[in-house]
């Protein structure tokens, strides 16, 4: 939305000591978000009126001419290619320093002195597009220069002054006025400025117009629920022409392209009041009977942009006695559009239900200046003001025209007058400071609220233009007062509250803890990935697609399912990183989603329905070019350290996973906490990389963290270490061996392998296992002899159970 400062000057006098930048800032701080301040004169800086004195052909170029141009103070030599150039013509001369756009395209550049095909040129004679005035002066060809001969201008005059293009435009972010239907017009913005600067605001002038009753205009509102008000007027003896200069330049200033006098008037009033209007060619409105009704299923309609649109069922339509003529509040129809030969119009000023307009415009993907305004819930009272203003303007522009019907007004305004009772104490409480009663009253009155104050309570009458949805509760009044008072004038202090018992959340604490542990102790780097899984990975990993939740409006096919596991994205990131690194470790801690299980979160207050389970998963990959065994043992080692770190008792058992080798499931008692193993070779494009994986159900894992660690008294007697190496069958597992050894005697405290190898000297299908043994007693210092005996026992058992041979 553009605010034109010239426009609002119709109703108020802006303070002299406040510059335009300050106005933008004050609006930002009190009302809306300003994106940019555009100074029209600044944009046309160094562009002046010139008079062409002399034209000679350019010596080097056929299409160029060299002109002597009177620019007021001097006569300049300027090279020009304008096809309509003639001697004595008044033109726009862009001098050195002016901002221009070559051929009306691309970026704005600052003009400098130039030699054109060997001839020096002091600036240029501009075409309209080159100085951003294309909308005001439609030109027939690109080579045509701006001809100012029809204007009362003289050489040397700055162009902005000559054409009265001296407005300041404040560009307002539309998002910041979504809730304020009244600010979609200049008058509403003027009201805000008046409130901010304590200015007197002229009441909006409405003139009573005389009407003839030649045309029996009839309006039937069949859908009262969606059409709150409909006013129609027929006007005859119209002559379609270009609008006068003042109207054109005012529209251009707020970014609208002038079209013809009638369309321009409807746009002008819309921009002035925020009330969209529409003009039908009366010849096309059969029986002068307007009907407002809903579209039926399967119908279609051609809008005035020439597109045939399939109408959503229930779309609110304007119809005559036979056919649809407009999409209510969104766009008119091609069949009743104003043409150059139009002489009779029916002017529409209506109020449609915001939700209805919004739904249809969303369904059609069709947005317009009109729908943007109706969506915000416009004040139905405005419709009458607007149609009167528009008719008055049309009558003044077309001197022969007259109003040919009575003003038809079908009014089903559902909005009630709102009176709010706001205790003074509420305002002071929400401010956290005491505000003078008179200040509060003054602010509200400037915003045109009705205010009465008795027994420390304000009785506040909400003006109709704020009462459609914007202001409905006392807190809304707090906001009105506070924003004009100035948020930054409110004193601030930290809240004084009662201390509360802290909440210990093991999942939160655990997450914080384990991330650091993984990063800093285990050299794992944390990655963040998307919540979406590519179906290609679902297939690659052999996951069950039925467990995946589908995203209805995915941004791309690769992101159409929610993660069931973090592995697919981690693997994909691993693949990316293999381009740069041979070895790395990555992990992620995030929520994953399982379609088939009910989760802990309810969907609404009834707490009867629940969202799918979406607990956090903790998962990681270890990527290496070493052999598989090393990667596997490294991952296993990580799991062992992690479980030690959190003091969780666990055991593992071998499982089969479609995407893994050597996969194990991790359990605490009977509860499955996660799994780990090796990703199958060739699952990634890089066939050399060995990838170990692990993943936990994090919510479960943290549940079994054992915080009750107890100190073990330090050993009183020294331990003795011995080594042993045996040759066994290759199939013998270390863990079996270990179990047997530990069971031999309580004096054997630890058995730890340090060397495993196979080779010719060991024999086929055999391996050598070397390990340390640690012996210790809690009652005495063990003697060498005691240990010698135990070593013999160990060997004996190993020989018996595993046919081991001492090396």
């Amino acid at each position: 939305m553009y605010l034109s400062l010239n426009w609002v000057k119709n109703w108020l006098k802006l303070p002299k000591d406040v510059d335009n930048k300050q106005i933008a800032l004050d609006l930002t701080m009190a009302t809306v978000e300003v994106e940019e301040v555009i100074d029209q004169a600044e944009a046309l800086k160094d562009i002046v009126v010139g008079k062409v004195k002399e034209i000679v052909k350019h010596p080097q170029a056929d299409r160029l001419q060299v002109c002597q141009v009177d620019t007021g103070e001097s006569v300049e030599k300027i090279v020009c290619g304008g096809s309509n150039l003639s001697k004595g013509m008044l033109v726009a001369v862009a001098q050195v320093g002016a901002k221009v756009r070559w051929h009306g395209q691309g970026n704005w550049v600052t003009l400098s002195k130039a030699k054109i095909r060997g001839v020096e040129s002091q600036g240029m004679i501009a075409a309209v597009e080159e100085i951003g005035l294309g909308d005001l002066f439609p030109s027939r060809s690109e080579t045509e220069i701006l001809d100012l001969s029809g204007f009362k201008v003289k050489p040397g005059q700055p162009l902005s002054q000559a054409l009265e293009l001296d407005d300041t435009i404040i560009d307002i972010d539309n998002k910041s006025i979504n809730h304020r239907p009244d600010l979609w017009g200049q008058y509403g913005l003027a009201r805000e400025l008046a409130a901010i600067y304590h200015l007197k605001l002229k009441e909006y002038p409405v003139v009573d117009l005389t009407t003839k009753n030649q045309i029996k205009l009839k309006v039937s509102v069949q859908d009262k629920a969606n059409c709150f008000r409909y006013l129609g007027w027929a006007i005859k003896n119209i002559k379609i022409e270009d609008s006068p200069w003042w109207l054109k330049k005012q529209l251009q200033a707020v970014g609208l392209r002038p079209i013809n006098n009638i369309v321009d008037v409807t746009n002008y009033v819309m921009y002035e009041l925020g009330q969209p209007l529409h003009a039908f060619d009366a010849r096309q409105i059969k029986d002068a009977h307007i009907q407002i009704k809903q579209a039926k299923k399967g119908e279609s309609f051609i809008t005035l942009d020439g597109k045939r649109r399939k109408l959503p069922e229930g779309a609110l339509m304007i119809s005559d006695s036979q056919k649809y003529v407009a999409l209510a509040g969104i766009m008119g129809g091609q069949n009743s559009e104003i043409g150059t030969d139009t002489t009779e119009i029916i002017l529409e000023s209506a109020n449609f239900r915001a939700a209805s307009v919004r739904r249809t415009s969303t369904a059609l993907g069709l947005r317009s200046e009109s729908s943007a305004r109706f969506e915000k819930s416009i004040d139905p009272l405005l419709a009458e003001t607007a149609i009167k203003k528009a008719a008055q303007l049309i009558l003044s522009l077309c001197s022969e025209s007259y109003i040919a019907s009575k003003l038809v007004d079908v009014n089903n305004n559902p909005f009630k007058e709102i009176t709010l009772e706001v205790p003074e104490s509420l305002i002071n409480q929400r401010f956290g400071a005491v505000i003078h009663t008179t200040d509060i009253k003054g602010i509200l009155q400037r915003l045109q609220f009705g205010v009465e104050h008795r027994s420390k309570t304000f009785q506040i009458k909400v003006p109709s233009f704020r009462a459609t949805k914007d202001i409905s509760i006392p807190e809304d009044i707090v906001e009105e007062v506070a924003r004009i008072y100035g948020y930054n004038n409110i004193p601030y202090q930290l809240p004084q509250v009662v201390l509360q018992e802290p909440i210990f959340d093991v999942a939160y604490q655990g997450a914080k803890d384990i991330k650091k542990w993984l990063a800093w102790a285990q050299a794992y780097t944390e990655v963040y990935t998307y919540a979406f899984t590519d179906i290609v990975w679902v297939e690659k990993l052999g996951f069950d697609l039925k467990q995946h939740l589908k995203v209805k409006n995915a941004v791309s096919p690769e992101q159409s399912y929610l993660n069931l596991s973090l592995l697919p994205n981690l693997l994909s990131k691993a693949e990316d990183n293999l381009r740069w690194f041979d070895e790395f470790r990555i992990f992620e801690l995030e929520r994953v989603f399982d379609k088939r299980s009910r989760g802990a979160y309810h969907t609404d207050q009834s707490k009867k329905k629940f969202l799918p389970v979406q607990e956090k998963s903790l998962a990681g990959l270890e990527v290496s070019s070493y052999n598989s065994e090393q990667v596997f043992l490294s991952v296993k080692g990580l799991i062992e350290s992690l479980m030690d770190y959190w003091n969780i008792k666990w055991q593992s058992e071998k499982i089969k996973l479609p995407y893994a080798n050597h996969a194990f499931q991790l359990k605490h008692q009977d509860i499955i906490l996660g799994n780990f193993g090796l990703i199958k070779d060739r699952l990634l494009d890089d066939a050399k990389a060995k990838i170990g994986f692990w993943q936990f159900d994090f919510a479960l894992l943290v549940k079994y963290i054992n915080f009750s660690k107890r100190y073990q008294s330090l050993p009183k007697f020294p331990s003795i270490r011995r080594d042993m190496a045996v040759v066994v069958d290759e199939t013998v597992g270390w863990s079996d061996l270990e179990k047997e050894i530990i069971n031999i005697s309580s004096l054997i405290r630890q058995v730890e392998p340090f060397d495993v190898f196979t080779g010719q000297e060991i024999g086929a299908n055999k391996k050598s296992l070397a390990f340390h043994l640690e012996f210790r007693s809690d009652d005495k210092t063990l003697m060498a002899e005691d240990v010698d005996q135990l070593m013999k026992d160990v060997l004996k058992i190993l020989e018996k159970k595993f046919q081991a041979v001492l090396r």
Partner: protein
Amino acid sequence: MEKKLRELKNRFFSELKTVRDDDFLAELKIKYLGRKGELASILRGVKDLAVEEKPRVGQLANEIKKELLEVFGRTEAIIKKSAIRPRNFDSSLPGQRREIGHLHPSTIVQEEIEEAFAKLGFSIFDGPQLESDYYNFTALNIPEDHPARDTQDTFWVEGKNLLRTHTSNLQVRMLEKYGAPFRGIFPGRVFRYESTDASHEHTFYQTEGLMVDRNINIGNLIAVMQSLLSAVFHKKVNVRLRPGFFPFVEPGFEMDIECFICEGDGCSVCKQSGWVELMPCGLVHPGVLKAGGLDPEEYSGFAFGLGLTRLVMMKYRINDIRLLQSGDLRFLKQF
């Protein structure tokens, strides 16, 4: 035992000859002469000998001990002397670094924020990302057909649910669960349906904050945010409030932070305004308090939605938002 002693002596002398440096010398001392050394263990055996053998073996043992100590002492002297000149090495070689991993920059900044809030007695909560329409929109005064839904393009998931568009989805959940007074923040991942480029992501991170108590006011909100932001940025920061419309707060604000690139003078980052938009906030709308089961006559509160991703990008001057979800270790190893 005599044999053992002589054998020990021989071994000692032969090993002593190979001594070249301090370390090995110290090892030998422990091995043979230490409290738990071989000689000591033989000497301990003397007490178990037959009475008649004790004196002779004892004497021999002592002689050998004396001899070993003497020879050891001489060797030690020689070695120590030659070792006055330390072994030379190139100390300009790089140190042996331990490999470490890296936390994601968002994790780092999020934790700084959490810690600052925790010090003010805010608890930290987490909640669903796959959310119902009710908690993401309706409970927050955003019914169907509300234009505010336009500004929050939504990922819809089968089963009528959605991916939360903001961390505000937890406001009503938390009030339902904990009631008032309440002080908490809820950091986490949020989603908007849009295509990605250097400055747009469909996945980003926010930290919602909610404080509900008796008599919470606008001044409290400014004071809390100013102290917290100062803690996060390790310096005093200036903030300003201006109007902003969000259906679940009333009044609603945008909070700006003084641009710390130009310190308020105006630069390209702050579009010459001296201020950078930081977060929407406001006093909790009575309708939201009611949805959370509280009496708006009794309680009031403030809420804010801090853009964590934006803060991370500001802090580390990251100019492409996509890097954050890229998993690119060349990027992540910088933090």
